[in-house]
């Protein structure tokens, strides 16, 4: 008991700060990844051969962007785009320095997730909307996005958790957050107790996010009687 309270006296503030940094980093990165990823996913669906505005060239190019983005390991991307990161936020360090590569890495992932969600919408609903005189924009917003909302919410939880994992890697280059703490204390100073504390926090946060995502998606889904 005493050992535990001594541990929290010494590292509690550090861990709380790291947790907060990780949440901010992950939350903002996920948000910006969706700002880019939603239009990307919608564009892929709309330009597909069976889409509302088939366009082979655009569809192929967007497909490449998505696949290239997802095929570069995050740890490499993180270092490779440092000049770009500096250009955007003025630094490659700390939380701002981590957000840029996290967004670049997650946006194609989000694009693919959004695409998958929109493709789940029954094509007959699109046809019905067209028969009532809906235009393309209305079909995208009022049918595709609206009908796939529960699936999109599940995607947000999955993305958030993936970005969470990446954000720990960003810790390796001094981005702050729990990953940074795990590396500096756990790995470099052989403090196993700090390492384990970060792991416990990460596991608990992932569980919370996934449960909240599932709950929100279920509550929102009107197909559940």
């Amino acid at each position, binding site marked *: 008991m005493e050992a535990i309270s001594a541990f929290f006296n010494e590292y509690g503030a550090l861990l709380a700060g790291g947790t907060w940094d990780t949440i901010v980093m992950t939350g903002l990165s996920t948000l910006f990844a969706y700002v880019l990823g939603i239009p990307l996913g919608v564009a892929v669906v709309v330009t597909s051969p069976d889409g509302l505005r088939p366009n082979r060239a655009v569809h192929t190019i967007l497909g490449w962007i998505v696949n290239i983005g997802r095929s570069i390991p995050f740890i490499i991307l993180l270092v490779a785009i440092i000049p770009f990161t500096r250009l955007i936020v003025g630094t490659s360090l700390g939380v701002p320095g981590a957000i840029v590569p996290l967004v670049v890495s997650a946006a194609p992932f989000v694009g693919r997730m959004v695409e998958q969600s929109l493709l789940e919408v029954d094509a007959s609903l699109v046809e019905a909307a067209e028969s*009532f005189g809906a*235009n393309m924009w209305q079909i995208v917003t009022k049918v595709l996005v609206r009908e796939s909302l529960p699936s999109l919410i599940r995607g947000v939880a999955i993305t958030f958790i993936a970005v969470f994992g990446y954000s720990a890697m960003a810790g390796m280059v001094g981005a702050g957050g729990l990953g940074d703490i795990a590396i500096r204390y756990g790995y470099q100073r052989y403090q196993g107790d700090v390492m384990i504390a970060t792991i416990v926090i990460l596991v608990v946060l992932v569980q919370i996010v996934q449960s909240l995502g599932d709950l929100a998606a279920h509550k929102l889904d009107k197909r559940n009687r």
Partner: protein
Amino acid sequence: MIQIEHLSKTFGSEETQHHALVDINLTINDGDIFGILGESGAGKSTLVRCMNLLERPTQGKVLVDGVDATQLSDSQLRTLRRSIGMIFQNFSLFQQRSVLSNVMFPLELVRADAKQSEARARELLELVGLADKANAYPAQLSGGQQQRVAIARALVNKPRVMLCDEATSALDTITTRQILDLLKDINRELGVTIILITHSLVVARYICNRVAVIDAGQIVEQGDTATVFDNPTSDVARALLGLEG
């Protein structure tokens, strides 16, 4: 009045051509309940989709009150579609929207006044006998109820024509009868012309005043329902009616 003149529809590239419809000529008069009868794959669904240009004909004209729909711009076509309601085999209701919101959907597209839209939608739910289900969701309704909601949605824009694509094929016998009676009422009381696609002779005979029989993309017979049923001249119509040879 809908006139279809020399309409053909071909799918696929030049090597893999499939002639879904070949030189179709039809006239559907105002007030008709017009049945298009045929086996699966005969081209019925493609034909009805050509009437509001969900499918674009490869050749020919679709004249809606004298205006050739194939010549309209995209926005003119959307306007035309608003005057043609449509219902589907699997109802095609929006699962994430309430019954009321489904019925209001076509009005939402034209940014109609929300209060008036809701009043209009409730009026139609009353008409189809589902006023008490306004706040329910499609997954909570039976097939027959879902098709009633779809009918209300198709009528909300006050169309003069309603296209029914195998509208009762997913329903049991009694529910089919109820839906057909509702369509008859709509035809009689609201003066909506109904074009109904079906593979069921029973359905065609029960509700249609005129029918066309389609086989392998061609119209093989058309006329008053009684005439076609009592004196089928084509082999296909005879086969459909169970009168072999």
